[in-house]
C-alpha cells in the first residue's frame, strides 16, 4: 500500500479523541506564522524608509536606519519563541501519533512509510496553520497602521510584506514543522510495542550557570563602553546576553523543582514540582516566552523614561522604542499563551489514563485543575523572577529614568500577559474533563 493510501485510510477514521491533536498544532502554527509576518512587516517598513545609514557623515543619523536595526533586534528576540512554538506544535502532532505509528509498524508498514506519514501529517497541519496565520496578519494590517511611529504612522502599503515574503514565511513554517517532526520522531523510542521508558532525569550541568555569567559580564563590559563599540556589536551582545537566559533557565527550574518537591505537603504542589523535576527543559520552554515578555516590558518602561530626558536627540526614539517593545510584548504574550495551551493539552492527552484512574479513585476535578494550574504557575514564578533579575541587570544604567507611572504600566503589562497565559491554560480544561470522564 502506498503511503498516501495509508495516510487516507488512517485519517478517514479519526475519532473525536484524536481531533485536538489536529487542530491544536494548526492553531499553534497559525500563531507562529502571524507573529513572524507582523514582525517582518515592521522590519521591512522601516527598511523601506531608510535614506541613509546609521552614521551618514556629519549631522544626525537616519532615524529609519536606527529603527531598522531595532526592528531586526525585535525579530531576533522573537525568533526563539516562534521557533519554540513551532517545535512544540510539531512535537504534539508527532507524539500523539506514537501509538498509532507503533500499530502501523506492527501491521507491516515500513519505518520509511511511517516517517513519510509523519512528515506529511505535520507539514499539512503547518501549511493549513500558516495559511490561517497569513489571513490573520492581513486582517491586522489596518490596526497596525494606526500605531504611531516616527511622529506619524506606517502606511498599510508599507506594512504589506509582499507575496514573496509571505511565501518565504509559509515555507519556513512548513520546513520548521517537518524538521521538528522528524527530530521528534527520531527522539522518541517507538518500538513495535510503542514502549517509551520514563526514567529519572539526569541533572543539568552547572556549566550552564557559568556560561550565563560569562554572557552577562560580556554585556556589562560592552554596554559600559557605549560610544566605543558600534550599535551592531551592542545589539549582538544584547541578544547573546538575553539568549543565555535559556541556558540558566532550565537549571533554575530543576533546582526550584527539587526544593519545592522536598518541601511540598499537599498533592497538587507535589505533583507540579515533580513534573518540573521530570522535565525542567519543558517547564522552561512553557514559560520562557513569558520571560521575554518581562524583558520587553522592562525595555518599554526604560525607553519611555529615556524619551522624557532632555539628552534625547531623536524626539520620538524613546517613545517609539517603548511602543515597539509593547507591540513585541503583545505578540510574545499571544505566543506564550498558545505555547502554554499546546503544552498543557499535550500533557492532558498524554496522561489521560492516569487522570481517569485518579477520577475512579475519587479525585475531584477541582483538585486536578488546581494541580495543572500550579504546574504552570510555579515555573512562571521562577521565570518572572529570573528574567526580572536579568532585566534589572541589563538595563541598570537606565533605571534612573523610571518613574512611578512607568512602574505601574510595567506591572499592568506583565499582569495582562500572565493573564493571557492562563487563558491559554483554560483552553485545555475541557480536555481534562473529557479525560477524567468515567463510565
Amino acid at each position, binding site marked *: 500500500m502506498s503511503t498516501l493510501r495509508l495516510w487516507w485510510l488512517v485519517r478517514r477514521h479519526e475519532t473525536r479523541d484524536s481531533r485536538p491533536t489536529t487542530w491544536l498544532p494548526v492553531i499553534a502554527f497559525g500563531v507562529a506564522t502571524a507573529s513572524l509576518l507582523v514582525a517582518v512587516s515592521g522590519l521591512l517598513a522601516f527598511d523601506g524608509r531608510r535614506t541613509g545609514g546609521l552614521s551618514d557623515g556629519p549631522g544626525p543619523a537616519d532615524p529609519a536606519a536606527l529603527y531598522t536595526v531595532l526592528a531586526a533586534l525585535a525579530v531576533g528576540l522573537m525568533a526563539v519563541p516562534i521557533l519554540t512554538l513551532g517545535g512544540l506544535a510539531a512535537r504534539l502532532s508527532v507524539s500523539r501519533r506514537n501509538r498509532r505509528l507503533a500499530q502501523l509498524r506492527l501491521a507491516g508498514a515500513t519505518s520509511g512509510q511511517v516517517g513519510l506519514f509523519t512528515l506529511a501529517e505535520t507539514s499539512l497541519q503547518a501549511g493549513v496553520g500558516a495559511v490561517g496565520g497569513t489571513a490573520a496578519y492581513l486582517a491586522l494590517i489596518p490596526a497596525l497602521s494606526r500605531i504611531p511611529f516616527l511622529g506619524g504612522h506606517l502606511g498599510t502599503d508599507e506594512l504589506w510584506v509582499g507575496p514573496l515574503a509571505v511565501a518565504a514565511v509559509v515555507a519556513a513554517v512548513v520546513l520548521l514543522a517537518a524538521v521538528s517532526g522528524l527530530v521528534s520522531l527520531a527522539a522518541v523510542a517507538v518500538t513495535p510495542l510503542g514502549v517509551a521508558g520514563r526514567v529519572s532525569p539526569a541533572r543539568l550541568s552547572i556549566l550552564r550557570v557559568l556560561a550565563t555569567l560569562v554572557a552577562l559580564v560580556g554585556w556589562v563590559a560592552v554596554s559600559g563602553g557605549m560610544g566605543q563599540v558600534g550599535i551592531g556589536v551592542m545589539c549582538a551582545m544584547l541578544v547573546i546576553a538575553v539568549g543565555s537566559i535559556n541556558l540558566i533557565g532550565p537549571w533554575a527550574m530543576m533546582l526550584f523543582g527539587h526544593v519545592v518537591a522536598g518541601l511540598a505537603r499537599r498533592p497538587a504542589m507535589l505533583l507540579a514540582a515533580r513534573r518540573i523535576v521530570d522535565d525542567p527543559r519543558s517547564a522552561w520552554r512553557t514559560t520562557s516566552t513569558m520571560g521575554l515578555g518581562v524583558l520587553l516590558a522592562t525595555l518599554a518602561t526604560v525607553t519611555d523614561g529615556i524619551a522624557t530626558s532632555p539628552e534625547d536627540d531623536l524626539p520620538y526614539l524613546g517613545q517609539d522604542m517603548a511602543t515597539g517593545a509593547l507591540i513585541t510584548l503583545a505578540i510574545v504574550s499571544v505566543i506564550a499563551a498558545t505555547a502554554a495551551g499546546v503544552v498543557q493539552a499535550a500533557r492532558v492527552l498524554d496522561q489521560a489514563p492516569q487522570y481517569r484512574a485518579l477520577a475512579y479513585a475519587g479525585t475531584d476535578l477541582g*483538585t486536578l485543575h488546581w494541580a495543572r494550574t500550579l504546574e504552570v504557575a510555579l515555573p512562571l514564578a521562577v521565570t518572572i523572577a529570573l528574567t526580572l533579575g536579568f532585566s534589572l541587570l541589563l538595563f541598570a544604567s537606565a533605571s534612573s529614568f523610571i518613574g512611578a507611572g512607568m512602574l505601574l504600566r510595567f506591572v499592568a503589562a506583565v499582569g495582562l500577559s500572565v493573564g493571557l497565559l492562563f487563558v491559554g491554560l483554560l483552553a485545555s480544561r475541557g480536555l481534562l474533563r473529557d479525560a477524567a470522564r468515567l463510565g
Partner: protein
Amino acid sequence: MRDTTTVTPTPARSPGWPLSHDDLVADGLVHHYGSTAGQGPALAGVSLRIAAGESVAVMGPSGSGKTTLLHVLAGIIRPTSGSVGWRGRDITGLRDRERTALRRNDFGFVFQSGQLLPELPAEENAALPLMLGGISRAAALAHVRPILDGLGLQGLGARRPGELSGGQAQRVAIARALAGSPGVVFADEPTGALDQQTGGAVMAQLVAATRAHGASLVVVTHDPGVARACERTLVMRDGLVVAEHLRDEAGR
C-alpha cells in the same frame, strides 16, 4: 472447582457467610447505555451479595456486562434501575460528589495498566490517595511504606514507574488501592498486561493483601487462572449472572 449453578433473580450468596454491615449488596440491576431502542441492556437484572472479606471473580465474554457491573457496584455510574447497598446506604441514590467521596474513602481500584503517574516515585504514587484525602505527605508515606514492603517492594519506593517491571508496577498499584483501608477493592483485568507467571504471582498477592486488610475483592477477568485465585466466580452472559462457582478446599 465445585459447581453450584444458580440463575438470577435470586441474589447469589456464598452459603455459610453470615450477613454483615460491610457486605456489598446489589438488587435487580438493569443498565442501558444511550438510547434503548434496538439495543440489549448491558445489565439485565443482576442481584448478588459480596460478603465482607470475600474475593469474587466476574468472568464472561466481551460484551457480557462484567465491566458495567463493576462500574455500577463501585458507584462510577448509576444503573438505569436497581440498587446497590453499602454500609446502610443505597449508593445509586447518591449525588455525584457523594459517590466521588465514597470511591475516595471506601473503595480501592486496580486497573490493567496506565494508572501510575510517571513523575512520582513508587511510594508517592501509593500515598497519593491519602494525600488527596487531606493527609499530610509525611503521614501518608509512613502509612504506605509497610504496605509496599509487604508486597515485596522493599527498597524500591524511590523508583519511578518507568524503572519498575510490570509486576512491580502492579504491586505499587495494589498498594495504592489498599492505602486508604478500603472496604472493597475493585480490579479490572489486573494481570492483563503481565505474562502468566508474573500475573499469577501478582494475583496471589492481591488476594492475600486484600484479605490481610479485611477488604473484599471484586475482580473482572477473562482469565480462568485469575478466577481460580478467588473464592467465588460469577459467570456473566448477556447482562445476567448465569453461573456461580465456588472454589473447593483444594483450590480448584
